[in-house]
């Protein structure tokens, strides 16, 4: 059992407010990712949870017990660091055994745990090596192994994959997910990479400027971002944002964004309870790249939401192509089938899937309720 609860957590470094009033419930066995750009307070939040950073205000509870003032080693948590932080003067075995030795575990038990973790991670043949003799991926495994042998209540991971090359990162991502299922541990995982957050976490906590922006399951955050920041941060390529005036004619909502006039399907409009308050007011509307199609390549394109766009650049990715396009003052990216006939610098017809549009208040940048 290891449930972590953060209550009104704040951290100030002199005049800088790094974390502000963060409250979060992390259930047992869950994999929670703290996601945000650098400087958003995610690592500081993690360090406070670990006990490495003193809390300015608020409380941290582990299984209902306040541990805010406890030293790091009293909390029963283990941490994996971005730059691995292996002890350079010890070999792999001693790196992994260090925490257990300090806790005065019997030798045989230390040996059993280290070897078991090494087997799990496929680093049995490296136990006698020094960290400097290992590749980045191997170091990462040792760092994870060092955490595993402790059998901690909570794993804390601070961007553990960001120093690996792209291929290895994808591989380790899957391995960490597997490991989480196997160990049934609670994991708090800090990353700035939205793909990691989407693929690994049961829950994503999006942070910005020290504040939590949104907490939710990956798809929930993707489908219903609470504000422009979250909408733009999650998803790659990022969501397209355009400005327009919300109109209502004959009971039908439109987005008036000259030269486009885009009808909002009634079932979509019904999702926004307070949409009526925004009639004739400017709004921000967001549409994801995959919700803009190449008109030629889809069946029954809606002529009302089809526009002629100026294609600036076509980026073929192999499995798909990105069209960087403009319509009047608006610019956007469309993710389309690679067989598109769109060419750089030529006009091309694209269709916006308005059933998947996101509407935001222009003033507050929050999702319209």
């Amino acid at each position, binding site marked *: 059992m290891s449930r972590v609860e953060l209550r009104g957590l704040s951290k100030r470094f002199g005049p800088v407010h790094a974390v502000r009033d963060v409250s979060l419930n992390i259930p047992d066995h869950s994999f929670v990712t703290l996601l945000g750009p650098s400087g958003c307070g995610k690592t500081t939040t993690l*360090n406070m949870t670990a006990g490495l950073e003193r809390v300015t205000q608020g409380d941290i509870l582990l299984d209902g017990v306040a541990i805010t003032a406890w030293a790091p*080693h009293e909390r029963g948590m283990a*941490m994996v*660091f971005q730059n691995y*932080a292996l002890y350079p003067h010890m070999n792999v075995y001693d790196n992994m055994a260090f*925490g257990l030795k300090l806790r005065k575990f019997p030798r045989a038990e230390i040996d059993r745990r280290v070897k078991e973790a090494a087997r799990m991670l496929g680093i049995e043949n490296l136990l006698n090596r020094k960290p*400097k003799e290992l590749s980045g991926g191997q170091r990462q495994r040792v760092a994870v192994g*060092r955490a595993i042998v402790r059998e901690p209540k909570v794993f804390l991971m601070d961007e553990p994959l960001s120093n690996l090359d792209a291929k290895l990162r994808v591989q380790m991502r899957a391995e960490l997910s597997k490991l989480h299922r196997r160990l049934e541990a609670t994991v708090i995982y800090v990353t700035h990479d939205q793909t990691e957050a989407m693929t690994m976490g049961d829950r994503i906590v999006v942070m910005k400027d020290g504040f939590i922006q949104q907490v939710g399951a990956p798809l929930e955050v993707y489908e219903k971002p609470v504000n422009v920041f979250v909408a733009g941060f999650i998803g790659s390529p990022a969501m397209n944002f355009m400005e327009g005036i919300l109109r209502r004619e004959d009971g039908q909502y439109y987005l008036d964004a000259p030269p486009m006039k885009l009808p909002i399907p009634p079932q979509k409009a019904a999702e926004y309870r307070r949409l009526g308050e925004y009639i004739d007011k400017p709004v921000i509307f967001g549409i994801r790249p995959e919700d803009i199609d190449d008109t030629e390549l889809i069946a029954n394109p809606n002529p009302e939401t089809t526009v002629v766009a100026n294609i600036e650049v076509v980026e073929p990715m192999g499995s798909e192509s990105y069209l960087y396009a403009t319509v009047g003052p608006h610019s956007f990216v469309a993710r389309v089938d690679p067989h598109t006939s769109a060419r750089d610098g030529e006009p091309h017809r694209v269709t916006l899937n308005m059933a998947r549009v996101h509407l935001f208040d222009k003033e507050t940048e929050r999702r319209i309720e």
Partner: protein
Amino acid sequence: MASAGTWLRPAAVYALVALLLLWTVAPVAWIATMSVQPEINYVSVPPRLRLEQTSLRWYAATLAEPEFVSALRTSAIVSTATMLLCLTFGALAAYPLARLNVPHRNLYLSLSIVARMVPAMILIIPMFLLLRNLRMLDTHLGLIVVYTAFLLPYVIWMLKNFFEQVPYALEAAARMDGCSRLGALVRVIIPVTAPGVVATAVFAFIGAWNEFLFGLILSTRVAVPVTVKLSSLVSTTFHSDTSLVAAAGMLALLPPVLLVFVLNRFIVRGLVEGMKY
């Protein structure tokens, strides 16, 4: 001209290095020569060194002198103790200055070094009175305390710079693994900065070993360091034979040279290469 330039540069560098070596090594080499030759051979002009007259008897005579051996022992004890104290207190002071959010940190650092800018001559009388009142004149402890006080600021500065190079995560990892801050310092930070710590230790040892002025004033009979004894030998016991003085000088030189020789690998890494993690 270009081809001339390509060999001229390294040649000039080597010439300079040779000159520097001559400058530093020649006097020592000359004393070493003097210590194994009868005086008459090298005081004559020009010197006439005779290989067949080379002998270690002046070393034997020096080591047979109880006062000199006692001075060597005093220097060894005082220097070793000073080195250990400097490392202990230095590490304990350098760690918070390098790692913790100590208020007025720069003020402490500046103040510690300002104390060393006062000429030793000015401090010698207050030091004498202080030690006399504490009944520590002419004791090993008295010298150790004074030497430590004078070397500590340098040691703190050096160690602070080495500690600062240790990545924060390394220490954080140690603390997560179960170390207190002190434990992380002893078990991880110091081992990881070993080359720097060793270089600092050697620096402190040599600093204490070579000290003369305080030893001269604060010690009279019991705790006379070898530097002071050497100077008195010149004017008293060995006045008749310069070879004896040279042999004594060589013996006084030996411990720090041996220390540097043994720890050379560490020192060079600590001073030149910097740390790699």
